[in-house]
């Protein structure tokens, strides 16, 4: 897989993961072009399309589009299920995931993705194992927080 993009129906990019080195300018261009192409497609159309020399696999979940670019040799259907498994992971982690969860916890969305896919290839396809890894990280996070000194009142209300 060369990259994965999550964007809303309004075309707002919510998550981007690039597995090939590209300049920021190219990334922006590709994103703009693809978001436009995918949003222009009608609901019943097929989930695959040819784009430049890549194959695009996309699927819409509620207000979010998940869109992957794969190479000629890659398998479209299994990519579709990669998307689905990622959605399942997000759903399980956040508890009925919605777009807002991904906006406000974007760093978590990245961490979950890194546990599942690495370098554009499936690293761990077992839902249990991926969630276990994230869960452990969260536990470490809790420990770390306990050790911290209490934060200022200003910080607690989010003013700094």
């Amino acid at each position: 897989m060369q990259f994965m993009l999550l964007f809303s129906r309004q075309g707002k990019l919510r998550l981007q993961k690039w597995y090939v080195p590209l300049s920021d300018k190219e990334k922006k261009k590709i994103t703009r072009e693809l978001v436009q192409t995918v949003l222009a497609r009608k609901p019943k159309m097929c989930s695959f399309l040819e784009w430049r020399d890549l194959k695009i696999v996309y699927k819409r979940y509620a207000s979010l589009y998940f869109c992957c670019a794969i190479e000629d040799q890659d398998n479209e259907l299994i990519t579709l299920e990669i998307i689905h498994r990622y959605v399942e992971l997000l759903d399980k982690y956040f508890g009925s995931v919605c777009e807002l969860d991904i906006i406000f916890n974007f760093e978590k969305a990245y961490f979950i993705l890194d546990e599942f896919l690495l370098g554009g290839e499936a690293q761990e396809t077992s839902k249990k194992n991926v969630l276990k890894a994230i869960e452990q990280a969260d536990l470490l996070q809790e420990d770390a927080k306990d050790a911290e000194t209490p934060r200022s009142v200003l910080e607690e209300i989010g003013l700094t």
Partner: protein
Amino acid sequence: MPAVSKGDGMRGLAVFISDIRNCKSKEAEIKRINKELANIRSKFKGDKALDGYSKKKYVCKLLFIFLLGHDIDFGHMEAVNLLSSNKYTEKQIGYLFISVLVNSNSELIRLINNAIKNDLSSRNPTFMCLALHCIANVGSREMAEAFASEIPRILVAGDTMDSVKQSAALCLLRLYKTSPDLVLMGEWTSRVVHLLNDQHMGVVTAAISLITCLSQKNPDEFKTCVSLAVSRLSRIVSSASTDLQDYTYYFVPAPWLSCKLLRLLQCYPPPEDGAVKGRLVECLETILNKAQEPPKSKKVQHSNAKNAILFEAISLIIHYDSEPNLLVRACNQLGQFLQHRETNLRYLALESMCTLASSEFSHEAVKTHIETVINALKTERDVSVRQRAADLLYAMCDRSNAKQIVAEMLSYLETADYSIREEMVLKVAILAEKYAVDYSWYVDTILNLIRIAGDYVSEEVWYRVIQIVINRDDVQGYAAKTVFEALQAPACHENMVKVGGYILGEFGNLIAGDPRSSPLVQFNLLHSKFHLCSVPTRALLLSAYIKFINLFPETKATIQEVLRCDSQIRNSDVELQQRAVEYLKLSSIASTDVLATVLEEMPPFPERESSILAKLKKKKGPGAVSVTELEDNKREGGELNGGGDRGPDTAAMAASNASTPSPSADLLGIRSAAPIGAAPANAGSLLVDVFSEAGPAAPSAAVNDDGFLRDLEQPTETSDSLLVEGSGDSDSAPPSEDPAPPLSEADELLNNWPKLNVQTKPVEPLVEGGAQIQQVLNIECLTDFSDAPLLNIKFRYGGALQNLTLKLPVTINKFFQPTEMTSHDFFQRWKQLSQPQQEAQKIFKANHSMDTEVLKAKLLGLGTALLDNVDPNPENYVCAGVIQTKGQQVGCLLRLEPNAQAQMYRLTLRCSKDSVSRRLCELLAEQF
């Protein structure tokens, strides 16, 4: 799994994100972001040391701002600090920032690598994984240098945790993709291959991606993976759907791993070991059988996972292309999918069948689905599916079904989506040619193509039909008749006029016997289209008219009348004007014998690969279209006046014997290949070369013009390199009474020209009568020069030694390299070149139109960059360029100040070499 408690998030970050979301406008958002950036900057710079938490929060905010699409140029240092924190949560954010905002600052990279090194050796699996993820996400060369030798060790070590192994495998894969030379598997190879046997399915899933990539590059070293992969696959395929626990996905056992195993096997030929092969065939059969079983779940995930494996298995079967039984079963399975209610499956079935169609074992089986595929082309609602259907029809076409398929494609073209029309046109043209039994069908098809989708018919297509008509005399009469009928339509496409003009000009005589298509009727029909056509087409029509004068003397008066009228002979387009002048003169002074020789029918074209096929090959995927066109334009854009892609100090230069007026020709043809067509033997042909020494000369002797005529008409593809046509073309030699084939001896000598380095290729000592030879001259500029180089052509014809000396249209500006620069830079350099001898200036009266576009075209044709918004006066033009010579680069700046009222120009040149300034000034002053 606990629901995410909001408390563990960063409240300041959440508030900031809400603020951004509440912004009503882009401006408000930018304002809010700038405020935040200022805040973060001051915190980072402040005297008070930040605690880890605050640092993490601010780094996270920066990351968020970056992901919104704004540039972030600070915070890297703070992120690196986070890496060395002992708190997982801080470390994690630090790594995330570094992975997303890769920075090439070497000091920073050193620090990052240090932190990664510490984490890799920490023996804390969570930290190790974070570090490996970071390497895999960044994947830079520097990281490969630092860690490529360390990671294989981690991957195969006995005490490495499974999760770390998984990360290590894919991390290594990423490094291998960026820097294969740094990842040396050597001693690890066998242990890596044996990861396929690992008990942990996750480890196998991750490792197999690495193994597949390595196998593609070093198949021999990794070939033991084949039998391991087969046995692993066999175990999965035969397992019950619950055996693999969490690796079973919607009742399908390990679909990702299965697909990857099948993919790995596609790196190798069928296993030689009979037992392994038998086991594999069994697996493939089981997969095909399972496709027929009732689904275990109605969920689309179940069928997708199952079919993903099935398609991968079919790919493997096609890859082996040796098991007829499996191939036919695969084809039948795909046939079922062609009518499936899932659009995705129909799409994939069409795609997969395309490859099956090329196997001799399954080609016939694929053909049985023709009706379904045609139906798909007509009724699918999704253009990407229709595209696949069109591809499949193309792939399954052979002599037996060509007529049907071509007819269906033609009728589809009438309503086809714009995005795929051009490709469809090429495909129809290729099929029509490839499977034509009688050429009248071919001619009909191509003319239909032009009628239905004229805009999408590229030059290659109509050139090709003409090549074929010229080469096959059995179809010439039919072609003339058909094209004549097609031209009767009140509105016909310009491409039809081109083909019509060409074919009637050559073969109009074949239908002239019928009073309904008498010579004058033919001429009037063509001429009725003339005024609606573009310049290149008009140029072609003028050539057709002169051919008419030869074919039908009775049309001479009418045509001369047309040529003589002001709109031709004083046409503002130089090319048209020249043709009108020369043809008029030719028709009035040459005897009928001379005319007949000069305007003889075109000789057959040498057989070669269809240029259309070449074009289609170049065109892969709709995305590539624009690129292809760009390349084409560049190629046709002509090099003579300093075109696209020549090297810095050589200019491939010459005239081409193979150009047809190109649509990209600009008004003056300055940058177009079209009029370059003139053979050098023809003094009157230097139209294009506005800057050449010779300048437009009066029409020379008629005989010499033949080459010119032919050049412009010959509808071959424009060749990549520009060619000088040597002499020795028997037609351009004086007509001889001697009926014996003229044998001539060609010998080209270029003047000893110390300022240029000229390379030529040796020429055959003998040029057959009627043959043409081409000579490519590569010219490198050694130092700047003033006089055009001379080309001497000596040859023996009819026993007498002939000697021609031609000026090559090579001037110093041919070696220009355009230079873009800003206004500030321009004037700074302008001032630097202030010595009096560096400047050359001329004030002169305008000899030609002062139209802006024309001026711009001329200046661009010079080969320099035309700089906008540099001169404070918008009426003025400034250009910059560098003349590349072997010894030095000469920077040149140009300023042209027109005065429209006085019809005067002031031209100023400043170059780093004074002789260049003077020469360019002389050259240019004649052009405006």
